[in-house]
């Protein structure tokens, strides 16, 4: 294969009446990667997925597959398959017939259909249920049938629309890893649409966060978590603390805490904010020598089993600053609500955001 992207969107837009669901999105999907499209509901991620699948035609822009323009190609002619959120299994067919359906459409010899169907049923551990109908299966089994039905076609790109949304929480965690294992095993390019940021972080090699029809940021999970490009990204992925102020040489000028330092640049005088993740906040009862941070008062301590979230009320901040410390940490039991505490962070752990 060439080194170019398997599939690409070039400045794609799609409007429904006055609503612009997708607004000039460009995207490259690399061979064999697990890509997540993340965003709040109504951000256009499902429309984008349907454009990739061929169920929506963009008003502007091009859809490319292996360097070929497939913008006008219908879904049934694209070597791309979609796993539907509702699974959309054929209720009148057995599991085996559901899985074989796509191969029959390719008019393959029946021996090959049988072999490939058998293989994929084996891979998804459905062999024993091959002769059941969808209404005789559990939610997790139905999900695997939907997956098998799409995988058996060996698409260039497999699209998955909220693949785990219908499962209960415990099963979802298992299936996140299971999906990743399967993707690794079959070596296909996966594109998953999800509104669950944790799911996107755990499963994907790369992800794009969407907002209002546009891509807010594309990158690896670590990149989006640690180096968010905007307040929206920082707020959507994980928990963030914001310190408001104005750009100043060397950091952010705040009224209550003086100059605060962080990674990034802000135009002097313009409104900006520093974002710090809860686990990067270092707490101290006495002011450390070189504390980059602010003094506050512990308002609340939330116990989460493996860790504690300390909510610290700080002068001039609308929302309490959240600091996370491990429950096994010796310091964990030291803190009491009402106590004064310094919340500091290393400049490289904070991020200066201008938008």
């Amino acid at each position, binding site marked *: 294969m060439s080194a170019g992207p398997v599939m690409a969107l070039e400045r794609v837009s799609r409007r429904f009446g006055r609503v612009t669901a997708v607004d000039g999105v460009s995207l490259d999907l690399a061979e064999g990667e697990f890509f997540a499209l993340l965003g709040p509901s109504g951000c256009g991620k499902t429309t984008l997925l349907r454009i990739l699948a061929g169920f929506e035609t963009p008003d502007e822009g091009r859809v490319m597959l292996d360097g070929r323009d497939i913008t006008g190609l219908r879904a*049934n002619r694209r070597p791309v398959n979609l796993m*539907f959120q*509702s699974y*959309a299994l*054929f209720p009148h067919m057995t599991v085996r017939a559901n899985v074989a359906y*796509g191969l029959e*459409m390719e008019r393959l010899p029946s021996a090959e259909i049988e072999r490939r169907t058998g293989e994929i049923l084996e891979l998804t551990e459905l062999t024993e249920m091959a002769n059941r109908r969808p209404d005789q299966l559990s939610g997790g089994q139905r999900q695997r049938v939907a997956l098998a*039905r*799409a995988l058996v076609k060996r698409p260039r790109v497999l699209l998955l629309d909220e693949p785990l949304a219908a499962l209960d929480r415990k099963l979802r965690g298992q299936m996140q890893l299971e999906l990743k294992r399967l993707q690794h095993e079959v070596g296909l390019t996966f594109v998953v649409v999800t509104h669950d940021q944790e799911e996107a972080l755990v499963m994907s090699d790369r992800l794009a966060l969407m907002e209002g029809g546009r891509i807010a940021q594309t990158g690896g999970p670590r990149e989006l978590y640690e180096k968010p490009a905007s307040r929206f990204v920082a707020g959507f992925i994980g928990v963030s603390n914001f310190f408001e102020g104005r750009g100043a040489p060397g950091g952010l000028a705040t009224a209550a805490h003086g100059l605060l330092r962080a990674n990034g640049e802000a135009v002097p005088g313009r409104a900006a904010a520093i974002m710090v993740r809860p686990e990067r906040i270092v707490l101290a009862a006495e002011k450390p020598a070189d504390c980059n941070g602010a003094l506050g008062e512990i308002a609340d301590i939330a116990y989460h089993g493996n860790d504690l979230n300390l909510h610290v009320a700080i002068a001039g901040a609308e929302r309490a600053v959240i600091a996370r410390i491990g429950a096994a940490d010796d310091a964990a039991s030291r803190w009491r609500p009402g106590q004064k505490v310094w919340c500091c962070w290393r400049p490289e752990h904070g991020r200066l955001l201008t938008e």
Partner: protein
Amino acid sequence: MRNASRWLNAHLWLVYAFLYLPILVLMGLSFNRGGMPTAWTGFSTAWYGSLAASPQIVSSAVNTLIVAAVSTVIATALGTLLALGVERRRQSSALDALLFAPMIIPDIVLAIALLSFYTLLGFTLGLHSIILSHVVFNIAFVCAIVRTRLKHFDYSVVEASIDLGASDFTTFRRVTLPMIWPGVLAGAMLAFTLSVDEFIIAFFTAGPGESSTTLPMRIYAMIRFGVTPEINAMATIVMLFSFTLVLASQRIGRGVVTGP
């Protein structure tokens, strides 16, 4: 409480008696050897035999079956497609009313309207005009029944089929139709029943002569000379036939409500 339920029970049975006693009497008389409605003279199936021996009755029965079969096939095909089309559109009560109308419009009105329309077009009347007329009201019934089935239809299976490489036609044949099949079958059975015992519209839109006389028309012609035992026998056959079909259609139709 017990008293009240006893009264309600009695009322129920009275209503049933009111509805079905005349029919039971008719069925009984069709087996009466003497043929007189006033006295029972012994059991006999002779009247059924004389029915079969009458070429006029046999030919009108054949006509009825032709009309019912052909109009059912056409109405089921068109009504099902109509239902699929209507259900995919935005809800419109005006459109719904127009679709239900042919079921509610009095037959006599529809009959006169159709006859005037055919005359206006200079259409020759015959078995084909009856068929066409029956298609008109049967489309509405089939459409209504298929639509109830479609209310619970998950359209993503249609997209799934296309996504897996199927054409629109293959998708209809292998996915949509099998899934709505109980509704289609129930609609077809109802259409067949309605066509078999339909009189007024057939009477108005039939051509002259024997060639387009249907069974209900034949009964009407015979009854002008009094109720003969043959008529009882024929009515019994038609009734049992319709009853079976309606029952079967309800049976199948039950799947319509509970879904797949």
